[in-house]
């Protein structure tokens, strides 16, 4: 919590004004619904304007649900430690953290992935990116 407060203070002091990279987070995803999933990668869609990972995840009853996980475009990932067809491959078991779609569909804005070897990488921007930000006085 202390860190979040520090970040907020930093943003205010430095006058940082978040703006949309491509689209708004909050139109479809809910910052109040964080989700952590572990599953098997079934597809990697390395395309613009958003890369998507597809993940088979077993729910509490043992039923397998295929999740769609949205993140940065390939260029951004390529500059931050990801390599197409190498970093994540179909069949890999990974854990991810993100925020769920508002409509309850098995879809999430993926912020961070933990790979099979334990390496952690960001896959998308923070919650709230691009949805307007503070307006009054700005």
């Amino acid at each position, binding site marked *: 919590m202390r860190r979040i407060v520090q970040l907020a203070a930093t943003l205010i002091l430095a006058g940082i004004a978040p703006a949309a990279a491509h689209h708004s987070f909050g139109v479809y995803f809910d910052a109040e619904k964080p989700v952590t999933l572990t599953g098997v990668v079934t597809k990697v869609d390395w395309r613009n304007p958003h890369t998507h990972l597809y993940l088979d995840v077993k729910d509490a009853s043992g039923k397998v649900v295929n999740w769609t996980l949205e993140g940065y475009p390939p260029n951004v990932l390529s500059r931050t430690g990801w390599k197409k067809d190498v970093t994540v491959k179909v069949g890999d078991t990974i854990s991810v953290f993100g925020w769920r779609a508002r409509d309850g569909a098995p879809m999430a804005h993926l912020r961070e992935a933990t790979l099979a070897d334990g390496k952690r990488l960001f896959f998308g*921007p923070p919650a709230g990116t691009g949805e307007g930000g503070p307006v009054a006085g700005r």
Partner: protein
Amino acid sequence: MRRLVLGLVLTTALGGARVGVEAQSQSGAIQPTPRLADGKPDLTGVYQASNRRGRDWDAQVPGDAPGQPARATQPSAGVNIAQRDPIPFRPEAQQRAQDILNRRSVDDPAAHCVPQASPRMTPVSLFPMEFVHTPKKLVILYEYFWSFRSIPIGAAHADDADPSFVGDSVARWDGNTLVVDVTNFKAGGWLGGGLVHSDALHLVERYTRVDRDQMNYEVLIDDPKVLTKPFTQRNTLMLREGTRLREYSCLENNMDPKLYEKLLVDPSTFIRKPK
């Protein structure tokens, strides 16, 4: 953290005159600004909007808690690092900004992959920009939306240009600063902070390569149809010699228009509720 504090102190002490920049220790001695054959500063290079000097791309990395960046990577690797004065909205524009906030920017033209004016494009730190500079021309290549501006130096504005999303640009020198005058915009572009510009948008950009690694960007934004007076926005651009531009084909698999059409049938699913 000390570097961050220093940057913030500098920013505050200078009254917002420049974006806080990290101390030089990270990349060694400051190198002089490169020069063109005519003696003017050479702006050529690949840059990232960032407060951090150094050859490598500046990006957040995970910290201890899920989704939170490591503290050292927080300050300068956000999506947008612009520092700007308060936007002096006219009342109708202020209301529109509030509507944009309430609707979580669902109407943003960027969601349709439309390039936007430079005050919005320049501070986005996720994508590099390449400057190609000769004595007669500056070409700025933006990976973001895979767009470009070809800016003649010492020329007059085109008299036969139709209004466009990124406007018509011409440049002149003011000492060591290249000043770019931009006019002739299509109405309706978004500049961030809820500001939707009109066709009267007029930008005066100032590009100052203060040394080899750092270029200061300052833009005076005027739009009498939506603002009561001009205001200024600033950010720093840092040279990233190890970076190249890659294709950003935003329309390749853009799912937003179809999804938004569905969601807008009932906007109550996503609009902000009064607290």
